[in-house]
């Protein structure tokens, strides 16, 4: 489908706005959600001309403050790499959103727009490639700091991320065996099938074990609590120790953008992506016979809203896990990744294979 450059740029701008807004709002959500969970009130004092907005202006104040902080470079640091490492980190976090579909087809004039920025037919492999490159941002930042402890933090981070990439891949194989494709848009379309005529065939029903595994491994891959041993935070020294000002701001933002990315991938693979139950391209087709006709724009809007709501649920879940569970020790993280999650993923593949054979 020949989409013009204008449409591609519009989709790109839309996705970037979506992701960056979520990333910025997540800084506020983290403080407010942790406050509500801990029976207190979070940040609520920043006000512009008397308008308080429940503390959202604190996120804006954080950003402005980080811009105006002195950007410090250590004396014998590797200056070009030191400056560029946070940018690499953010780049590879943002680029992963190019293959996430947030809607079906949208008819604009006489072009049919596929609501996915880059319609790759190897979407899942692209995501793994991006996750693999994300290690570079961390390791280069730690190495260029010329600080022994930051370097150790970076080594911890790289070992953890590389180990969990294996489990990340293997836990998806069961899904790919069922969906028979690695194109993310086709995966989401496949999940619109109805089992037995009334149950939407979402991935979590086909692969519950795969879902739990993928969520755990995803949280470990993005170094969120409880797997944030590389990041440190008051017990062991982390890899962004020497970064101040906007360099630290970019690492901080990467953390939240990767949280959104794991939520988006989980929703796409296991929870039907943009699928609303019983919503087809021309309206609702209920199994008991009713039908509600909707225009194409309305259908696209409903699909986008459903995607957003599902992503927000997983963001809430990851934030709750973050503020509840204590941190794992580093050897526990490694043991979990190699000795437990990887064999269970392989067993998952075997079981899926058996069941597919039986059902044939």
């Amino acid at each position, binding site marked *: 489908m020949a989409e013009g450059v204008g449409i591609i740029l519009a989709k790109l701008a839309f996705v970037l706005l979506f992701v960056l807004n979520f990333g910025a709002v997540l800084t506020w959500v983290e403080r407010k959600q942790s406050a*509500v969970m*801990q029976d*207190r*009130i979070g940040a609520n004092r920043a006000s512009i001309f008397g308008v308080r907005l429940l503390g959202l202006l604190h996120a804006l104040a954080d950003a402005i403050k980080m811009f105006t902080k002195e950007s410090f470079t250590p004396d014998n640091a590797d200056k070009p790499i030191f400056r560029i490492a946070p940018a690499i980190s953010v780049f590879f976090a943002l680029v992963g959103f190019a293959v996430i579909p947030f809607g079906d087809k949208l008819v604009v004039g006489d072009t049919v727009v596929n609501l996915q920025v880059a319609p790759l037919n190897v979407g899942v492999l692209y995501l793994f490639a991006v996750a693999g490159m994300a290690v570079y941002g961390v390791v280069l930042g730690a190495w260029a700091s010329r600080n022994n402890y930051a370097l150790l933090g970076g080594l911890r981070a790289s070992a953890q991320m590389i180990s969990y990439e294996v489990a990340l891949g293997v836990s998806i194989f069961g899904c790919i065996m069922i969906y028979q494709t690695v194109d993310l848009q086709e995966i989401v379309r496949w999940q619109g099938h109805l089992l037995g005529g009334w149950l939407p065939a979402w991935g979590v029903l086909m692969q519950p074990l795969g879902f739990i595994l993928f969520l755990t491994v995803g949280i470990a891959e993005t170094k969120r609590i409880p797997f944030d041993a590389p990041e440190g935070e008051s017990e062991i020294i982390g890899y962004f120790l020497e970064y101040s000002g906007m360099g630290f701001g970019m690492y901080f933002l990467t953390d939240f953008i990767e949280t959104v990315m794991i939520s988006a991938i989980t929703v796409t693979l296991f929870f039907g992506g943009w699928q609303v139950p019983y919503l087809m391209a021309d309206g609702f087709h209920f199994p008991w016979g009713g039908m509600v006709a909707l225009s194409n724009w309305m259908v696209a809007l409903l699909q986008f809203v459903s995607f957003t709501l599902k992503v927000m649920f997983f963001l809430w879940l990851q934030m709750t896990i973050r503020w509840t569970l204590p941190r794992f020790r580093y050897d526990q993280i490694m043991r979990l990744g190699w000795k437990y999650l990887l064999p269970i993923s392989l067993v998952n593949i075997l079981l899926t294979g058996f069941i597919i054979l039986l059902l044939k």
Partner: protein
Amino acid sequence: MNVHDKYGPLTLWEKFYLAPILAGLWLTSKHFFRNLGRHILRAVGIKSRAMGAVTIQYPEFLRPLFPRLRTMHRLTRREDGTPRCVACMMCETVCPAKCIYILADEKLENPQIEKMLHSFDIDLGLCIFCGYCVEACPEDAIRMDTGILELSNVSRNGMVLDMETMLNLKPDGSRYAQYDKNGDIISNAYIQQPKKS
């Protein structure tokens, strides 16, 4: 005795930690939704006694203080307006941090009271707020019941209290908890009314 000897090694189910993890998530989610519901109800306008947070929002709301709390010092006066202090130097001697500096003067009007104060300085930057000076004073001249807790300044010299300041402080009863005639605390005096700052 090692705890592992008492309870034995972990069973396979316990090693999964699924039950404790889910119990923890259940507890925090319960707090989250309960507080969120209370916040939304108060925002909509349905006010109830249940607060969404236990925070006392200083400086608009004040926590009630109790009578024995040791806050900023003040010097008391007799009925005729002169300070009670007779410069006996008891407080200066007993102070563990040696933060009281007294200079005495001769009091000529009354033959039964021989001395009076020339200057009385307390360096609050050194004071540890133990209350020994209050206990040691034989004249009940110094008390620590002003209810002023906000002792911060931009310089160390600004924290030296002199005699004039301390004589003019009054006990501020509005920040203290209210008691009824039997000595029981009044129950709804826990979060005080907003103060204008």
